[in-house]
């Protein structure tokens, strides 16, 4: 109706949990671009980096209160309010990838459980949408190659969230350091190793200056996605078509983000290898097995909470059926890769 078209554009103030220079700011921009175009300019965004209004870990509170209208974040940043938050992306790995678990969110009951957690259990005044299944996060940066559980025993390692519990169970001493202090701390021996997130974020962060062994693949944070938070009052006041645009643009941006990540993560990994003399490894079978054993010890403590037990049951049920299909069905991609690019993979 013309009455609607005549309205001034709605401006949504979105703050992320990322520094201004991080590649994830570009991911947030892809989302905004889609919303603004699809809405014909009826929605405008003001995108702010972490700290512009509130700190990176404060965005949930801020969206809930309406200090900001929206946030681009990950749920593990607010798992101090409810440990169940960590199950939406950084929980135990039963065999599903981030894509599998994002599918669980949309199709396997995750969305309802998330709604129950945020609306009923926590009484939050917001909506959350999930998008961009992140590639598994590397085990991280080490001064020397590590292959056995003995190699990592007693190492001082920096990580966050449930991964901290996991690494502690594996015999590492976990240190918590603010982001900006990681590289100097590493250089001076306050920590021996750390993980951050992905080759692009890690290279911008200067990881290659303090360690030369980059160990990929790990079970500690293997199925994370972005969380898009919207203040409920702001969202409810919008006409239905704009609400739909905000929600479905998350799905659209998910594909765009994946493409951008594939491009940048891989070229930055090559840059790390070729220009910075970084040796890239895969986490050894032994360490991966130890990670699973450590998860085994953590799962019962999580399941002590009835809600978390239901989430984990739902995830296991989904993974058991879906991943059976995925693994049985997917062709051996490594074989094909080896055929056309022989000798490159050292699995």
């Amino acid at each position: 109706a013309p009455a609607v078209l005549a309205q001034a554009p709605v401006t949504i103030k979105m703050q992320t949990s990322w520094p201004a220079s991080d590649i994830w700011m570009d991911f947030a921009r892809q989302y905004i671009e889609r919303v603004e175009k699809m809405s014909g300019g009826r929605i405008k965004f003001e995108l702010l980096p972490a700290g512009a209004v509130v700190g990176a870990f404060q965005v949930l509170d801020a969206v809930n209160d309406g200090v900001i209208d929206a946030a681009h974040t990950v749920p593990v940043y607010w798992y101090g309010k409810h440990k169940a938050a960590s199950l939406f992306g950084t929980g135990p790995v039963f065999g599903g990838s981030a894509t599998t678990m994002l599918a669980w969110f949309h199709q396997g009951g995750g969305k309802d459980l998330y709604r129950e957690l945020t609306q009923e259990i926590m009484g939050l005044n917001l909506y959350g949408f999930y998008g961009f299944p992140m590639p598994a996060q590397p085990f991280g940066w080490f001064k020397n190659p590590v292959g056995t559980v003995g190699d990592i025993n007693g190492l001082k390692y920096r990580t966050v969230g449930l991964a901290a519990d996991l690494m502690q169970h594996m015999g590492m001493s976990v240190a918590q350091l603010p982001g900006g202090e990681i590289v100097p701390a590493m250089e001076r021996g306050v920590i021996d190793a750390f993980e951050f997130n992905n080759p692009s974020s890690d290279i911008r962060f200067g990881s290659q200056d303090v360690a030369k062994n980059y160990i990929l693949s790990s079970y500690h944070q293997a199925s994370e996605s972005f969380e898009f938070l919207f203040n409920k009052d702001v969202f409810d006041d919008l006409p239905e078509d704009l609400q739909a645009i905000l929600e479905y643009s998350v799905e659209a941006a998910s594909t765009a983000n994946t493409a951008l990540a594939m491009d940048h993560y891989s070229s930055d990994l090559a840059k790390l290898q070729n220009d910075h003399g970084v040796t890239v490894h895969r986490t050894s079978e032994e360490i991966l097995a130890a990670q699973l054993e450590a998860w085994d010890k953590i799962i019962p403590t999580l399941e002590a909470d009835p809600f978390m037990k239901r989430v984990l049951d739902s995830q296991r049920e989904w993974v058991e059926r879906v991943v059976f299909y995925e693994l049985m069905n997917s062709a051996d991609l490594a074989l094909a890769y080896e055929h056309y690019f022989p000798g490159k993979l050292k699995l």
Partner: protein
Amino acid sequence: MTDAHIAVGMLLILILAIFLGFPVAFTLMALGVGFGYYAYYDIGRMWRAYNRAVESGADTYTQLESWIGGFFNNRIFDLFVNQTYSVIQNDVLTAIPLFLFMGYIVERSNIVDRLFSTLYIATRRLPGSMAVAALVTCTLFATATGIVGAVVTLMGLLALPAMLKAKYDVRYATGVICAGGTLGILIPPSILLIVYAATSGISVVRMYAAALLPGLLLAGLYFVYVVSRAVLQPRLAPRPTKEDVGDYSTLQITWMMITSFVPLAFLILAVLGAILFGFATPSEAAAIGALGGLLLALAYRALTWQRLKESVYLTARTSAMVCWLFVGSATFASVFAYLGGQQLISDFVTGLDMSPLMFLIMAQIIIFILGWPLEWTEIIVIFIPIFMPLLPHFGIDPLFFGILVAVNLQTAFLSPPMAMSAYYLKGISPPYVKLTDIFLGMMPYMAIVILCMVIMYVFPGIVFWLPNAVYGG
């Protein structure tokens, strides 16, 4: 009038309000919340609950309640608490009470007179030996405590009578104490640098590494000045006779150094070394320093229950003084930026078409002038955030800028009318030492501070070399 103009008005009101003499922390808080109420005023949000209550046919009481509640349904209140929480869990500011505690313990640990006497004897053959001893004592002591008032008054009671008795010139004697006592805000572990780091987002460890050489340079320039004046005008600082000083063997002097100079120097080096070489974060090093201070006081049998209590309580009061400023300024600054005040100032300054050097000089002159009526805490917490976003435009490194500010703010203690160092010293001097003498005695040091800034500008390596060598470029 646009929002940005209102923001500039907010800043002007702040400056006026500061001069009314009301505690600055609460002035900032009030203006932040007050202007924030305007900035975040949202009529739809305000009456949403009330409208719903009316639509749903709620009773009169509920309607009234939601109507009143509407006035408080403004995001500024949530922002205010969020910002306050960010301040109270700020891991950079955590070092402040610990370093203050270390300082209060050390200043009560009875080490300063021993240190001064020892250094005086050790330097007795130098021209102006007492002034040199006072300067070195001040530098070391200021470094360990960082509390300017205590250093100046202590030295005023200790070194000033000694110098006056030895017929030192009044201006010469008072100047060196005021200037030396102020070095503590520059030489790490300085509280000023922590506050600057927390305000600007620069790593504290880099600030410390960057401030070390400029701090020593400034102390060195003071030293050169003190000695050369004593050489050129021997009547300013008559040489002591053997009877004045007494006769000491090298062994005696060495023992005195070991029991006075060495422990304090060791404490300072341990704290700085731990930070610079990354064995500990600044907060951790501060805790170790406080523990070291306690042990040192214990060793000098100066750690009484009374003094421990004094140190603990004063730590709480001074920490509250500094950190409540942050509680006020955090909300003030975000409302100021939200209204677009920052942008307006940036546009205005960048529109002036200044060269980076001109901008740098202008900024330092503004800070210098602010240092006359104000103290460093207010200047850093309120005005640095306004300069900070302008630095990238002029290609000025915020680290370099910060060290220049720390050097510059030495003058805030030395420049009338609010020359705190002079007041402290006047308060404990004999009546014939006039305030104007003290002011005149301090003037050459203000010139040396400016000289030091020029040297740093010409040779920026003095600032950058150490942080780059230790932490990489």
